[in-house]
């Protein structure tokens, strides 16, 4: 019950862009790059083209998503944090 309430509370405080990012990461089987996420979210026309990147970092601060730099791909790769993944399940 507590987890459900916590998940609902967290979801209610999210912006449309943040929800779009989470949904992208949920449906992906592998971590996604900043470039990929920004392009996908920008297509939804929810705001300025720079906003998705801002929201990625905000979601990271909230502990909902995590990032890792891949030297091979020259990119930061984003995925849902274990904590949030648990909440979703």
């Amino acid at each position, binding site marked *: 019950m507590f987890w459900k309430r916590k998940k609902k509370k967290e979801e209610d405080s999210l912006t449309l862009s943040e929800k779009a990012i989470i949904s992208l990461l949920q449906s992906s089987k592998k971590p996604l*790059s*900043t*470039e990929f996420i*920004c392009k996908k979210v920008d297509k939804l026309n929810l705001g*300025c*083209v*720079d906003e998705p*990147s801002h929201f990625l*970092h905000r979601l990271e601060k909230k502990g909902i998503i995590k*990032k890792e*730099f891949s*030297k091979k791909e*020259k*990119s*930061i790769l984003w995925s849902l944090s274990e904590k949030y993944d648990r909440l979703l399940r």
Partner: protein
Amino acid sequence: MNIEEIRKDFPILKRKINGKQLIYFDNNATTQKPVQVINAIKNFYETYNANIHRGIHTLSQEASEMYEDAHKKVADFIGANDMQEIIFVRNTTEAINLVMYSYAMENLERGDEILTTIMEHHSNLVPWQYLEQKKGIKLKIADIKDDGTLDLDQFKQMINEKTKIIAITHISNVLGTINDIKKIRKMKKDAILLVDGAQSVPHMPVNVKKMDCDFLTFSAHKMLGPIGIGVLYGKKELLEKMKPFLYGGDMISKVEQHKSTFAILPWKFEAGTSNIVGGVGLAAAIDYLNKIGMQNVRDHEKELVKYFLEKLEDRNTIIYGPKDPEIKGGCISFNIKGFNYHDIASLLDKSGIAIRSGHHCAQPLLKRLGTTGTCRASFYIYNTKEEIDKFFDILNKIRG
């Protein structure tokens, strides 16, 4: 100019970000505040706080005087005739909107032309787009050359007898290009010349009489002052003829049931309770900059830009804008091939380094440059070569 002494005045520079000493290279977006400005704001609220104008009591008299003095200080700082030519607004964007609504909307007719450039911040483009759609004004946009400087030949060719307003940035917030305003003024003496000084007034000596501009706009927060207050300079004879921008309290002379007359300048354009403490903070910022000297500010930034560019050049790095510090303000835009600009900013932030990434509110320019965004490092009086060295320690690790 003693940078170590200057740095002591900025409490935020002691802050650690992600366990590392903050290196703040995002000064084109906003600058940090010295204790002198912070204390002026604190002191106002602790000692002088009152609403201005028409108050009989001591506090109101003192606050009014402080707010008026702030206008005088700004006038002196940019070489205006007097405080009647200085209007306090919220920011540069609002200042340009004021000119668009109160001057251009009233005086321009269908077929008249406004000439601007591809290197403008959205604040000096979107208001004119609105006018184009609303009144059938033709908006012409001059291009840049491949080196990021304005194509002056093309610019000149775009001027004709229909050109009523030239709206141009003094320094590009992306490329750093310094536009030669005097040269532009000579090309067309009878058009209204609006100069967006958001990136020049904080960084170099600017004199409205020498430039012979009709309007100059800038923001306090980009020059050590508080957020939420900006300046519109306008020639007095123009401002006097213009209709008010906002209507209501404090901007009137007499009010009857169905008509009103308006206050003298600058109050005609400052409706409602003003950002009094913002004015006080801006005055303190000007005092601080005057003590350093604006030419010293410019020389310091030139040196940092030269040093930074020498280290930045690399076959995998694209640098946007001129590379000659003589014609470049204190900002450098770049991309590292193969990397996303937001990722670079994010990786630098991990080491306590603040730069900006993205379109910098200049999307048409970025499109012209063939990208959707860049990384941008921009400097101010408290930045040092040692900070640039630390920056490159991290950047070089990233770019491999």
